[in-house]
């Protein structure tokens, strides 16, 4: 990235000016490329903020996450290129699912209330099949990627270990600046980093859940039907999960591949799930309605 501190006529550029000039340089380097919309920026920034807050809270509950975030907002996030793709993929997935859900809404004709229906209508407790249990686990892993208000987030369990490690170290370094005089707490910080890494290594996130569900469906011969049904129901997390597992990719990678794919590329992308053009039609329609997608080969993303 270009530095503008030595521009003639500008002595000490403010961070704002520097950022603007970097943005302009990027624009000039590729004027035809589509740019992030305000919504995409806000979503990605929010996701990054929640990620940093969550990781910091896991490192040390005494960290003032508000102060950390304010500092990093002012000075810039360390190593943003490390988690930009993850934040962007999550933001785009959220935009897509939100748009899809807005279109679905509740059915116009709600089921009529049965005559004499009781409030305590009987429901049957059926044991979960292995596939249903795997689906439930996938749903839970997916919903862990939201905060308490339902805003999109990155699950710590889903984070690449290297990204998690780097983020922990950056936050620990910031924290160390605050407590460097307190040797006992400073020493405990190193221990907290190691403990957080150990805990992370044992966690099973959405990738593990996706693989388990995929393998279970493949075993009982229901994989292809389930993928087609997921499209019909606009159950996008299931579709992404199954495709990711089939292609041995991470959920985040698969999301990015799907949301930046040209329509013509969809059949080959979903070839392992044997989804034909007819099955893919609702997916194509839904993607086509998502504005500002970063579609490969399309400058404006439309």
């Amino acid at each position, binding site marked *: 990235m270009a530095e503008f501190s030595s521009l003639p006529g500008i002595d000490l550029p403010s961070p704002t000016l520097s950022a603007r000039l970097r943005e302009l340089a990027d624009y000039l380097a590729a004027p035809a490329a589509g740019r992030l919309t305000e919504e995409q920026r806000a979503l990605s920034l929010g996701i990054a903020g929640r990620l940093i807050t969550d990781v910091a809270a896991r490192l040390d509950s005494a960290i003032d*996450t508000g102060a950390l975030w304010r500092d990093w907002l002012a000075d810039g996030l360390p190593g943003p290129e490390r988690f930009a793709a993850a934040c962007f993929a999550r933001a785009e997935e959220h935009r897509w699912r939100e748009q899809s859900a807005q279109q679905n809404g509740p059915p116009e004709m709600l089921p009529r209330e049965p005559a004499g229906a009781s409030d305590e209508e009987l429901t049957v407790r059926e044991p979960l099949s292995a596939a249903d249990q795997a689906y439930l686990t996938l749903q839970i892993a997916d919903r862990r990627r939201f905060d308490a208000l339902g805003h999109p987030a990155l699950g710590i369990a889903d984070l690449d270990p290297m990204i998690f490690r780097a983020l922990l170290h950056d936050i620990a370094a910031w924290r160390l600046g605050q407590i460097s005089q307190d040797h006992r707490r400073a020493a405990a910080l190193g221990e907290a980093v190691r403990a957080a890494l150990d805990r992370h290594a044992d966690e099973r996130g959405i990738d593990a859940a996706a693989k388990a569900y995929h393998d279970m469906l493949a075993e009982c011969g229901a994989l292809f039907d389930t993928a087609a049904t997921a499209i019909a129901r606009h159950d996008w997390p299931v579709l992404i999960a199954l495709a990711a597992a089939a292609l041995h990719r991470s959920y985040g990678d698969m999301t990015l591949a799907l949301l930046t794919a040209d329509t013509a590329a969809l059949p080959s992308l979903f070839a392992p799930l044997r989804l034909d053009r007819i099955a893919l039609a609702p997916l194509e329609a839904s993607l086509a309605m998502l504005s500002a997608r970063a579609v490969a080969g399309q400058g404006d993303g439309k």
Partner: protein
Amino acid sequence: MRSEHIIHGRIDRAGLLISADAPLLRLQQRAGAGLGKPLALPHLARLVALAQRLQTDLSRPLHAADDHSDVHALVRIIPDSDGANVEISDWRTRPVAQPLMPALAATSVTPQSWTWECDQQLRMVALRAGAEAPPIPEEWEGQSLSELFELQPDEDGRFPVLRALARQIGFDGQRVRADGPAARVSMVVSGEALFDATARFTGFRGVAEPTDEPVEAHPPQVLVDPAFGSLPLSDPIFGRRIDGALRGPLSRIIATAETISGQFDGPIRADYARYAGDIAHAGRHLLGLVDDLADLQNIERPGFKAAQDEIDLGDLARRAVGLLGMKAEEKGIRIDAPRTDDQMPATGEFRRVLQVLLNLLGNAIRYSPENSMIWIRVDREGDRAMVTVADQGQGIDPEQQAVVFEKFERLGRTDSGGSGLGLYIARRLARAMDGDLTVDSAPGQGARFTLSLPARAI
């Protein structure tokens, strides 16, 4: 969306937001701050600082963005010696429609609340605590909503969540009690119904808000476990013993065995996984027995009386088929159910009749050969409305027919399929509704169980 009213806020001399109307506070919170914290909206903070420095009123357009929308408004800042007042008008957000998924209605969520989501079987798929909320229970994943929350009936003895489940609509005002890791809390739960693109109901999502209602140190006597169809337990001691001593441990055994069997924590030897599956199966059998015993205790108490709802046996038969259709499909069994226009008005308690039909249909599926057929017919004879469940199983000889409705009678079967109480309970229920349950069968010719109830004119 455009708001006509003025949104107020107050900034102190140090630039801290010390009071704010809800929309402004929400933006501040979404930007990672709150009351008593510096204004976290950069554009607004700069305008406030400018107005304070110039000590003059300022009116400017305001642009802000949160996760879901861009906000455009007109802001007026009135500085004084102790800080500044902020008045925001012409508040517009885009997109116009509030997102349905996954953000919750912002107005209903507070920092003190839990947010939750469950699937169509009321199994919890999400549970999160707000910043100032009581801690959530540790093992909530996949638990039933009615296990996680002890449902309390409203003033009319109804459960809003179950009413909403039956109608597939949103609900509020469901009083519950829940066990957090630290303490037992009283809450009010509300939720909205969720649907997918095929208009299929997929569950609920909502908020649980703590209340000030005092909670006993020990769980109150649980009389109803409505989500699973367990019935009111008439004897408090019996009911408490069943719930406390058996149901909880059994549920944990089943859940743990299923986890091992499903190899969710990693692969294990195949025979070990099978053993765990056997444990889960036996556990479910025992849990069914607990339910049956509790049911038995209830219907055998003196004065037991069923409600007299206006029901349609055709509709109830189709509901039973809907609930057990998957089970039949697993064995390749076809069920010939009454057509949708096949009505048979009768009088009886809705859920009790459904319970009887589920028992009859469940037995028919369990004891029918694979790829066979089950018929359900509705009929009327004089003042009796009848529904008959007929199968192609091995049939029941006359001697066995005489005892098939006895307690714990399993006709010599030793598999873990049932407790031997189902048909006894079903007949007791039928008779409590001024009806009867009879069987007609011959060895090798299948069995026909007929539930008859008082007929009702349309």
